[in-house]
């Protein structure tokens, strides 16, 4: 059942929750983890914490595939890493989490016990916050073995980015932003909650668990609420085509949609075209296809494509791209040509430059690392900085992504890090390799995870290659294979696209003994 919350009701509910939090002892600057399902309560709790000057962080609610205890383990890891003072959760989780976390100095409370008498609160993210340099919330990335990044964002930074996004999109109170992204995701929180509340547009939130099983719910919401704007990762464009039922297309009218922004994973030309072909007969305008690039370190968006124009497509020579790291324009659809879609132009307050390995600026159409400088940049990291922490010194953030600039548009071509981005989620290969190392029958330290292209799904597919301890009969090999898949799913919520169990010394290591992921990927592809 849909529930509607006006700005006044959000404020009134947040006042009651804030009073409850204050009674609990939550004070300005305290970190409060919100481990709640995707719900109105989650939004209210977030707003209440903001209004107290406490730092909320939204924990991803677990998928039903996770094994028993894994959710609790992950929360514990986060609480330690983030030095969290408080945790708000569901009543049925409260006692187990209490027994684990209270000894770590984290107070665990069931959300339903929080409601108290309202006390007036200051207006979070209101006009006064526009110059407020204090921390507003902490945005955690995914990952489980301590690789997560806790990005601290100030009120000022968040408002700067919201203003920049609203400016580029031309957002008004007439707009209706439809969002199925989880709220622990930077783009989910920003597009689904913060942007609508601050701009006065209507935000419509859909459960990500429901959307993934039934993408038609997105289109039913667009129809019911007259949706105009939607942000979603590239794979979702494919999923909306492959996972839509005919019945959901009946009476569908997309003429009112001003933009479907493709963001959070590399934008693929084929995905946009697939989506366009399927939905153009239902009124989808070509100019309503958009794109965006960003990261939690700059709140959400660094670049967004201009409205009212179709996305810019750059046809370049594939060979030059791969061999010379250069984007040479060629005729569309010609032999050896590949199409790249612009991720848009820097929004207000953001600068982008491309540099070589020594941080020297590169000319247009040369591929290098994407650097971003933004007035919506992070204050720092919560807890120990992650191994791939961004360098904050110069104000230029090293994104770890590769790309080029052409006539002011940013094109993203790849990434420097071994990070896997699959289904809009960041997945660290280290997490998979660590889990594989603990499985009987496999050699510890002799597993490698990497991504391969999955054009049909419009995202990266995840491959794991792992060395067996010894040669085993086929039946036993199958048992090990099943155990690996089971553990990847139940501990990491990861589905392997391919699992290859190999003999001793298949995996290539560097001279310093580290797993060489790209070399192993090449070897895997050459044997495929």
């Amino acid at each position, binding site marked *: 059942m849909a529930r509607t919350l006006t700005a006044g009701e959000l404020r009134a509910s947040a006042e009651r929750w804030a009073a409850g939090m204050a009674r609990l002892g939550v004070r300005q600057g305290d970190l409060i983890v919100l481990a709640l399902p995707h719900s109105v309560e989650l939004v209210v709790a977030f707003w209440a914490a903001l209004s107290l000057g406490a730092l909320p962080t939204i924990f991803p609610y677990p*998928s*039903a*595939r996770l094994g028993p205890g894994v959710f609790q383990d992950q929360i514990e890891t986060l609480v330690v890493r983030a030095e969290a003072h408080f945790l708000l959760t569901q009543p049925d989780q409260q006692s187990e989490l209490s027994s684990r976390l209270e000894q770590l100095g984290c107070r665990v409370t069931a959300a339903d016990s929080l409601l108290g008498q309202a006390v007036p609160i200051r207006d979070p993210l209101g006009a006064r916050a526009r110059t407020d340099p204090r921390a507003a919330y902490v945005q955690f990335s995914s990952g489980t073995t301590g690789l997560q990044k806790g990005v601290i964002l100030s009120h000022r930074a968040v408002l700067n980015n919201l203003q920049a996004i609203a400016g580029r999109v031309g957002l008004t109170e007439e707009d209706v932003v439809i969002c199925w992204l989880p709220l622990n995701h930077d783009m989910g929180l920003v597009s689904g909650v913060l942007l609508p509340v601050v701009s006065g547009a209507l935000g419509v939130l859909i459960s990500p668990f429901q959307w993934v*099983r039934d993408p038609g719910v997105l289109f039913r919401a667009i129809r019911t609420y007259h949706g105009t704007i939607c942000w979603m990762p590239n794979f979702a464009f494919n*999923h909306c085509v492959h996972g*839509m*039922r005919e019945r959901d297309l009946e009476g569908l009218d997309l003429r009112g949609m001003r933009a479907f922004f493709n963001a959070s994973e590399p934008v693929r030309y084929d995905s946009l075209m697939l989506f366009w072909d399927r939905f153009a007969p239902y009124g989808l305008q070509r100019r309503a296809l958009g794109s965006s690039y960003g990261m939690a370190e700059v709140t959400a968006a660094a670049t967004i494509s201009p409205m009212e124009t179709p996305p810019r497509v750059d046809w370049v020579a594939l060979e030059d791209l791969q061999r010379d790291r250069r984007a040479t324009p060629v005729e569309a659809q010609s032999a050896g040509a590949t199409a790249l879609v612009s991720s848009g132009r820097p929004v207000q307050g953001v600068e982008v430059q491309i540099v070589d390995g020594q941080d020297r600026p590169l000319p247009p159409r040369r591929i290098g690392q994407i650097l971003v400088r933004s007035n919506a940049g992070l204050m720092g990291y919560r807890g120990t900085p992650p191994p791939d922490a961004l360098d904050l010194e110069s104000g230029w953030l090293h994104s770890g992504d590769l790309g080029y600039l052409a006539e002011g548009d940013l094109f993203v071509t790849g990434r420097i890090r071994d990070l896997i981005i699959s289904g809009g989620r960041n997945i660290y290969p280290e997490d998979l390799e660590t889990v594989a190392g603990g499985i009987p029958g496999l050699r510890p330290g002799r597993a490698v995870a990497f991504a391969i292209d999955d054009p049909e799904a419009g995202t990266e597919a995840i491959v794991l290659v792992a060395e067996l301890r010894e040669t085993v009969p086929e039946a036993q090999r*199958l048992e090990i294979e099943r155990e690996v898949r*089971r553990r990847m799913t139940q501990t990491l919520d990861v589905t392997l696209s391919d699992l290859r169990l190999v003999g001793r010394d298949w995996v290539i290591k560097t001279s310093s003994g580290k797993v060489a992921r790209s070399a192993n990927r090449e070897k895997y592809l050459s044997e495929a």
Partner: protein
Amino acid sequence: MTKAEVQRRLRDYILKDLIRNPSYPLADDEALIKGGLLDSLDMARLAVFVEAEFGVYLPDSDLTVQAMNTLEQMADQVLKRAAP
């Protein structure tokens, strides 16, 4: 339509289009979702297939780990919702 027939057609689709490994020795009671062979995206595609193949509408509330974890369970769901 017999259960064996439904199961066979589901198996063919899953191996060819979802797992994309036609030679995988999938057991009838093997945990597809909890076992890490299929994810929620696959369940949406499976529902589209079931509607086209059997004319059976599976509401999204049925596309869960509890109701659809094995081939046998899937076949039961299809038959339960098929017109008599």
